[in-house]
């Protein structure tokens, strides 16, 4: 018997009933049509992370386009590493905070933040500054360090990845906002929107040993897709990624990309990093699988300089 099952069965009747009420929204998987937004992508440059987000989301019609009143929102930043914000290994905490504030303004009932970290999760959550920032904005910062938080899902059509265990909050929330930080990556050359999903699943090792690039693209098939991707390109790790060694590895790019199409987001991010899109194998794979559009010329992009 798994521990989670044990909990479920051993909790008394009253609590179970309460929990069942709580879980009422469980089967109401995210289904609302994404955005009647004016643009496919909004790129902002030259401001602080929070100010750039204010502008960008406004161009997309405000957070109300993505979050309805009373909905539960999951914000998934990259909190993978036990380093300070200046080193660019994790999503900028001010950006995370600002997104949460917009969600609540749009009427979100609850906002959750988690990441399945690579380093010790307690240190990652605190040293990244994200725990404090997210809590101060009223979000719930949720642990993801134990298998008991994960649930099995199916990915029909996945070539290498047909099953995965995902964090239960992905299933229990109504809206998923993906907030990766753009970084160099030693193996896949870049980590951004698609690769950020490795922090949603429990068994990353399976991806690594079963064609990493294909698994990254396969996961994007899963029905619970992000309503919005906010790419943090403020402090960008351009080498020694995804962890970095020192501040020599980062370049201040003071940019941000907001998009509903995560393949397009990754394609734009690759250009920011100066890497040919084709070199980042999972992008063309995902494009071919119809998961998004990597041809930026065919998209309606709004570019803003502050």
């Amino acid at each position, binding site marked *: 018997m798994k521990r989670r099952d044990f909990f479920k069965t051993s909790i008394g009747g009253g609590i179970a009933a309460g929990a069942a009420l709580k879980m009422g929204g469980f089967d109401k998987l995210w289904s609302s049509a994404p955005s009647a937004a004016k643009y496919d992508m909004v790129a902002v*440059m030259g401001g602080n992370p929070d100010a750039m987000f204010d502008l960008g989301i406004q161009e997309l019609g405000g957070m109300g386009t993505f979050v309805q009143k009373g909905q539960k929102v999951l914000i998934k930043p990259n909190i993978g590493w*036990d380093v300070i914000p200046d080193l660019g290994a994790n999503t900028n905490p001010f950006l995370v905070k600002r997104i949460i504030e917009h969600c609540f303004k749009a009427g979100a009932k609850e906002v959750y933040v988690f990441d399945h970290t690579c380093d*010790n999760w307690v240190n990652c959550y605190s*040293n990244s500054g994200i725990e404090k920032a997210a809590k101060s904005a009223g979000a719930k910062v949720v642990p993801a360090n134990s298998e008991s938080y994960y649930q099995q899902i199916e990915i029909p059509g996945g070539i290498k990845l047909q099953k995965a265990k995902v964090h239960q909050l992905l299933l229990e929330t109504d809206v998923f906002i993906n907030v990766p930080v753009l970084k160099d990556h030693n*193996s896949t050359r870049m980590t951004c929107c698609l690769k950020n999903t490795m922090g949603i699943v429990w068994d990353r090792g399976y991806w*690594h040993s079963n064609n990493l690039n294909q698994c990254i693209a396969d996961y994007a098939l899963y029905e619970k897709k992000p309503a919005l991707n906010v790419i943090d390109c403020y402090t960008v790790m*351009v080498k020694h990624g*995804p962890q970095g060694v020192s501040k020599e590895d980062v370049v201040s790019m003071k940019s941000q990309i907001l998009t509903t199409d995560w393949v397009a987001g990754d394609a734009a991010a690759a250009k920011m990093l100066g890497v040919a899109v084709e070199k980042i194998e999972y992008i063309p794979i995902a494009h071919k699988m119809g998961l998004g559009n990597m041809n930026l010329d065919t998209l309606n992009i709004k570019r803003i300089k502050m």
Partner: protein
Amino acid sequence: MSSSILRRIRIVFSTLVFIFFVLVFVDFKSLIPANYINTLMFLQFVPSVLKFYDLKILASGGFLVILLLTLITGRTYCSFLCPLGIGQDLNSRIGGRIKKKFRRYGFKRPFTILRYTILAATLIVTIVWGVYMITLLDPYSIFARFMTCFAKPVIIMINNFLAGILGKFDIYTLSNVPVKGFPLIVYTIPAAFFILVGALSLTKGRLYCNMFCPVGTFLGLISKISLFRIKFNETACTRCGRCAIRCKSSCIDFLKYDVDITRCVSCFNCIHTCQDNAISFGIVNFKKKVHETDESKRKVIVGSLLLLFGLSRVSNGQDKTAPKPKKESTVKENRTCPVCPPGGVGIADFNKDCIACSLCINACPNGVLQPAYKQYGIAGILQPVMDYHKSFCTYNCTKCTEICPTNALHPLLLEAKKLTQIGKAKFIKDNCIVKTEKTACGACSEACPTKACQMIPYEGNLVIPEVTEDICIGCGHCEFACPAAPYKSIFVDGNTVHVAAKKPENVKSEIKTPVEFPF
């Protein structure tokens, strides 16, 4: 009943000490600061002796305080400060509740030969070979291992149960902590002691302390010249025998008005129970005693020599056999040396100072420290060893080095720890996913905090790891992350002596801050 205040002080004080000890060992969230723990450990006899021997500074001379205390008040340490002793008192109390017989002790003859043999053997083994026997018999370490092996998992399970319930209500103040057990064999020694100490204390009071414990025996010897003792007022005494029955150490021979000071742990129960005010704790009147030759002393020497002879066989056997081969035919890691924690300086140095109390194993936020069972050989059994299949050593942490009570792990500043090479990563190309599957992986390089493990061009668009050993610190994150099985394609081979790693060099990137969008 006038002096029962002493007993009350003892109970309150020892309860506080005990609670604090338990808290330190079940503190799975590392909430208790290192300096609090160090203060508590200062007065633990064996750890303090070893630390003093290592550092030779007065700041680590807690045992001197204990010696002085013993000279003045007898074995107060055993009742007031020893967590195993206090735990036994608690257990005796429970025993008394279960069966009245269990709390009726009465005078018994001491196990003189056994206890002095154990003390002598422990001393000689420690001086000649090292800490191996102390590791087994130090009461603090025994208690510590009980906590680590049995109490902490229970606390974590309770926490997980509560975290599960709170999680249902969307409250995440408690988080689930995965319980990672040790290899089963590790539990055998603590379990054996748990049964022994538990059974004896449940039914026979402090018999363990007076039969086996070398610290108890040693302090008992010193007590022979202690200043304050339990005294009889022979005129007031009605020889009712209540004191002897209440004496956990079974050391009061009321018919002779005699208290065996080597076994008395100054619990003051006798004073409390005496209805005639015939017993008190006060300055001793030295009586002249007839000197008797002790036949048993000779037996002690013979016995300890026998024990030593037997033990020398055991303690020298360094078992370096590799892990059991598995069915799959990939390349086996060639581990030549276990990895000992940072601050250990080197395997030999570490093995001779560590008493396997498991405090560091408990404190490690990543759970990478595991009790050894064969890695260091029998001599280093239960000492902490880095297990990179369980976890890895987190880069920004020096916790284990801060709290070691014997200085087996020297304190390291974070900057020094980041440059302490405890082992070196070895890459086995034939096991690597990139070679065997011809797909991208890079889990090892991703995890490497110094980029000693970097990806270099391989076939086509693929990249494959390469290790620069001199900047590797042996943290094991690469080995932990490597998905190859059953044999890893990268593993850390320990350094027999820790060395300084080179600082990773880094140059500013040529990529400039953009002024235009590149798309």
